[in-house]
């Protein structure tokens, strides 16, 4: 069964309990932070910070307001990172978590470049670094527990459940309180769907969520890899073979003609 998370930004109070819980459960070191002019801390996701509450100031007509948005890996249903990795270091579990196998990684960083959400991060300070990101607390999921961040959330802004149920729940919330939400469950259709879903009072593009179509980014690339590559190989080989045959025959004919001419000359 596909699991999911529903993050309702209208319920989030910006307490960062999820951020701390994630660090604790996953044994991630604290980061040395600097004041960079925002309450958001640290400034971006990193190898040591797999989830981050982003603070965005928006003006929706009734004055400035803060919107808090917990960000992390979206656990795409069609993960670009997994499609990209040459050595299959990313795979999707049955429950929908996209997880990383450190033993396979060669560090090409293609996953980092292709992820539409910019999620995978590298341990830049290590001589032989790994790629790191939110792993949907697979160990907890497998033990039948909810992820650490969902458990820690005091306002139920993050809820864990079956993805289908969460979509129904999200749509229900929009129907019941249309004034409270924009009519968009982010992650339901984006790139063919993501396991993590969001509800918000302000349009998502104002919060820095990328605007994405319903087509998975992996489709084109995988179709080209499956059909394009062999057909290019076959076509090139065929064209080469054909030309080679043609040239060597022409050469033979030319030789034959020359021989014939010579014979004629000798005969006359």
């Amino acid at each position, binding site marked *: 069964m596909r699991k999911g998370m529903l993050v309702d930004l209208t319920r989030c109070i910006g307490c960062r309990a999820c951020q701390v819980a994630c660090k604790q459960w996953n044994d991630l070191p604290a980061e040395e932070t600097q004041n960079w002019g925002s309450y958001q801390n640290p400034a971006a996701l990193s190898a040591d910070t797999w989830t981050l509450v982003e603070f965005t100031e928006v003006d929706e007509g009734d004055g400035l307001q803060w919107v808090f948005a917990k960000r992390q890996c979206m656990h795409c249903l069609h993960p670009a990172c997994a499609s990209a990795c040459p*050595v299959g270091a990313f795979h999707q579990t049955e429950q929908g978590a996209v997880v990383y196998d450190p033993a396979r990684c060669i560090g090409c960083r293609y996953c980092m470049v292709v992820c539409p959400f910019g999620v995978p991060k590298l341990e830049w300070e290590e001589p*032989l670094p790994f790629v790191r990101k939110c792993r949907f607390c697979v160990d907890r999921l497998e033990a039948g527990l909810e992820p650490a961040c969902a458990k820690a959330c005091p306002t139920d802004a993050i809820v864990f459940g079956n993805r289908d149920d969460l979509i129904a729940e999200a749509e229900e919330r929009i129907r019941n309180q249309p004034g409270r939400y924009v009519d968009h469950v982010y992650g339901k259709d984006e790139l063919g769907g993501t396991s993590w879903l969001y509800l918000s009072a302000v349009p998502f593009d104002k919060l820095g969520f990328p605007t994405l179509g319903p087509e998975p980014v992996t489709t084109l690339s995988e179709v080209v890899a499956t059909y394009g590559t062999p057909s290019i190989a076959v076509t090139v080989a065929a064209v080469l073979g054909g030309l*080679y045959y043609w040239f060597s025959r022409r050469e033979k004919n030319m030789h034959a003609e020359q021989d014939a001419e010579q014979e004629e000359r000798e005969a006359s």
Partner: protein
Amino acid sequence: MSKTRKLQAAIVVILGIVTLVGGIAAIARFVQGLGPTTNLSDAYPWGLWIVYDVFFIPFSAGAFMISAVTHIYDRHEYYPIARPVIVAGFLGYVFVVVVLLMDLARWHRFYNILIPWYWNLHSFMFEVSMCITVYTVILVLEVAPAILERLNWQKPLRLIRFATVVIAGAGIVLSSLHQSSLGSLFLLMPYKLHPLWWTPLLPLFFFAAAAFSGLSMAIFVAVVSFKAFGRDLKLGLLSDLAKIVAIMLGIYLAIKIGDLLTAGEMGLLFTEGWLSVLFLAEIVIGAVVPFVLFLTRKGRETSSGLVWGSACVLVGLALNRTNVALLALNAPPGATYFPHWIEIAVSIAAVAAGVLLFFLATRFLPVLPEPAVARDEATT
């Protein structure tokens, strides 16, 4: 004579020093890791070294283009230029592999790519890595005759000669795949790569660019190396190649414009600020100028025309690859990247080492035809 000798010695020394500095920088990178020795970051995971690779892979394609012409179609008149071009392509490739290894964050596990149960057949990074590995082996086989002749090892030499057509054929197939899959790497990034560059036709464009850039590299290397070593060169051969380059450039331009038109993106040529400028620069310098130049007789039939035209194509290629792999990929707002001196030193050293080895190869291996025999060989 002694003056040119001195000049040559000076060049060798300078190239050697540059290589040495780069080698030391490379050691620092391996000891300390990518973080302290490059300016790469989570915002810019790819930088100068990736650009180096996506440029030199099509540059080196000249080797397979020329080996195709000589081995498969038996065009004997191209033999004299085949060896220097194949050696240049081989060296280009060797340093692609070196720089690629430098760029792998977990380089000590590069052999994971050879473990069959790890293979991800959907991944173009897999395809690229595989092609690099196999194609390097093929290039070794293509270069081997020059070395074996020198050492006078007849047996392996005969074996390789016997398999030449097969080797050349396999090389061409692989190299074509390789060039197009390099473009396919970016198919996964419709939201990352700027729409002026992102198109489903990326594999086709990368393949076409490799074909005309490879030929241009062949023209460039042939003219320059024959000139530098004072050997005779029949320009007629190269004019024919230049004509093919012009035809390919024409087709490339037509498809590029057609693609922008059908995607309704012509307007982007003027609205995207410096990205528009970069795109236009790449098209004008790399395609329009050499296209026009090689259409004229003067451009095709003089050595200066040939050198300038092929240099334009190569500069255009460099621009194109820098744009696609770095400048036109969107990064988080506020993030910047400029290569660290170690990245620059290593890249320059890779080129310098390549030129140095090419120089030594032409001096000590039978790469260029002997000055006196050259004319006889060409006529037989």
